[in-house]
């Protein structure tokens, strides 16, 4: 029997496999396909203080082994989440982790305070890396001082597990990771999407309404893996790793590089059952390779 349970600081998950914010709706969209209770956790769609319509259409472009999105944090606001959505999913036997967004530090604090009131939610993911909004978002995550400022502010407002989601669009991700660690983050998650672009040569126009969008999918996996490994070696807090994980082998690679938990993102669109298959695959790998606990895989890469 393999012990699949893992910890992100004080947050215990039944297994390392969670689903990435914005790629798994509020879980309900996957109810027909899988038993959501089997998941380690669900990072739900990015939430903001107020209702947001998101960006105009088109919001998506396919790219080699990946996709661009420019959704722009479309959501009905934190109050609606609390009153209408959470009651529908709170029965799930898995960690529901809200992804917190804002245009200003005050926004972040206000959303966080509202979530702090919700019983049953044990962690938040602070998204300082969304490339698809005009204000806030990635701007916080690409500068060390602002990343520290927002993390410190939210840390004061929140006493449960605080995970800070980092942007890969930086020269040195370990610098930001160390900054938010010092600012009180309990864990970091990485990577968010890469700022990227697609052009339609026929029309000579950008494909996305916002010109640039966020690149996700297997295309980014080698870069994401490098960043997870760098951050794992730079900080003492645990890492939640993601970026192009399509199967159990990919997930195991992230764990070997130092991720305590992994997040499945774009892969959910292609196979909505993949997260469960990844859980099974990690268990099998542990059995076949003599690991009695999934936690033993974390950072087990031999250099």
């Amino acid at each position: 029997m393999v012990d699949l349970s893992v910890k992100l600081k004080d947050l215990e998950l039944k297994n390392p496999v969670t689903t990435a914010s914005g790629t798994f709706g509020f879980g309900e969209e996957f109810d027909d396909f899988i038993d959501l209770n089997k998941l380690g956790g669900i990072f739900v769609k990015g939430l903001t203080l107020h209702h947001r319509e998101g960006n105009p259409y088109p919001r998506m472009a396919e790219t080699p082994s990946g996709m661009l999105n420019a959704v722009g944090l479309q959501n009905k606001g934190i109050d609606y989440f609390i009153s209408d959505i959470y009651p529908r999913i709170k029965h799930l036997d898995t960690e529901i982790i809200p992804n917190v967004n804002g245009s200003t530090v005050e926004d972040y604090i206000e959303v966080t305070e509202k979530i702090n009131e919700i019983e049953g939610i044990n962690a938040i993911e602070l998204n300082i890396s969304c490339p698809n909004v005009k204000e806030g978002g990635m701007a916080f995550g690409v500068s060390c001082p602002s990343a520290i400022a927002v993390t410190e502010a939210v840390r004061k407002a929140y006493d449960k597990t605080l995970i800070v989601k980092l942007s890969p669009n930086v020269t040195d991700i370990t610098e930001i990771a160390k900054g938010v660690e010092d600012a009180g983050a309990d864990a970091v998650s990485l990577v968010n999407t890469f700022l990227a672009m697609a052009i339609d040569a026929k029309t000579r126009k950008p494909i996305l309404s916002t010109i640039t969008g966020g690149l996700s999918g297997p295309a980014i996996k080698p870069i994401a893996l490098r960043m997870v490994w760098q951050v794992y070696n730079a900080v003492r807090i645990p890492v939640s790793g993601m970026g192009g994980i399509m199967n159990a082998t990919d997930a195991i690679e992230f764990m070997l590089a130092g991720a305590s938990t992994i997040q499945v993102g774009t892969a959910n669109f292609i196979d909505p059952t993949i997260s469960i298959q990844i859980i099974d695959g990690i268990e099998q790998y542990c059995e076949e390779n003599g690991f009695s606990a999934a936690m033993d895989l974390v950072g087990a890469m031999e250099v």
Partner: protein
Amino acid sequence: MKKIQDFNVKEYKWLNDSSYVIVLQSSYPIPEIKPGNFAEIAVPNASDVFLRRPISVLDVDRELNTLSFYIKVVGKGTKKLSELNIGEKVSIIYPLGNSFSINGIQNALIIGGGSGIAPFVLLGRKLQEEKVNVTFLFGARTKEEIVLTEEFSKYGEVISTTEDGSMGEKGLVTQHSVFKGDFPFDKIYTCGPDPMMKAVAKIALQKNIDCEASLENMMACGFGACLCCVTETTSGNLCVCTDGPVFNSKVLKW
């Protein structure tokens, strides 16, 4: 309930240079499919296709466990799907999306163009069951592009327009004589290129007739998870894959 299910290619029928019907068979039962529903098809063996492709269900046979799709080759994925081996495995997520509404109507006009005729076999059959009179109006550039008329004529009269006049009346669907003089229809359904649907919706508005349009869109998931496929409506951005693909034209910001 939505499913992800493996099918095998049973047969192809080419309808013209660039469009074909692909029939897929499964060894497992097929759930109920409503007119307007679509599927997300994973394109196998394609080095340059990453996401699934949304395609309307053309027809379903729940005894043979077959699904068929009418596909127009427009790019990499639709091309590759046309080249599979008989027996090859294809993964499908379905049934997706909402459906056309049918209550209380007597005379329906169904207007299709391009690959936008696909949902209308199931719709025609359903309307026939509900004893609704159906007229199909199809528009295309030339007669080669007007396909499956035999199938459609089982459920109602088929009329058409072509831009070169090679079949039916010459011109665009919205210029067809059916819109002139007496207009017996109490409902219009439409699917096809956006400009066509917009023109149809405008006529419907003028004539004060209910009109439902089935939209296309760039989709990453097809089942409401990514929020990539929105269309602007009177109640804000809605997902074409879950709130649609069928919308009453009145709610669309056209």
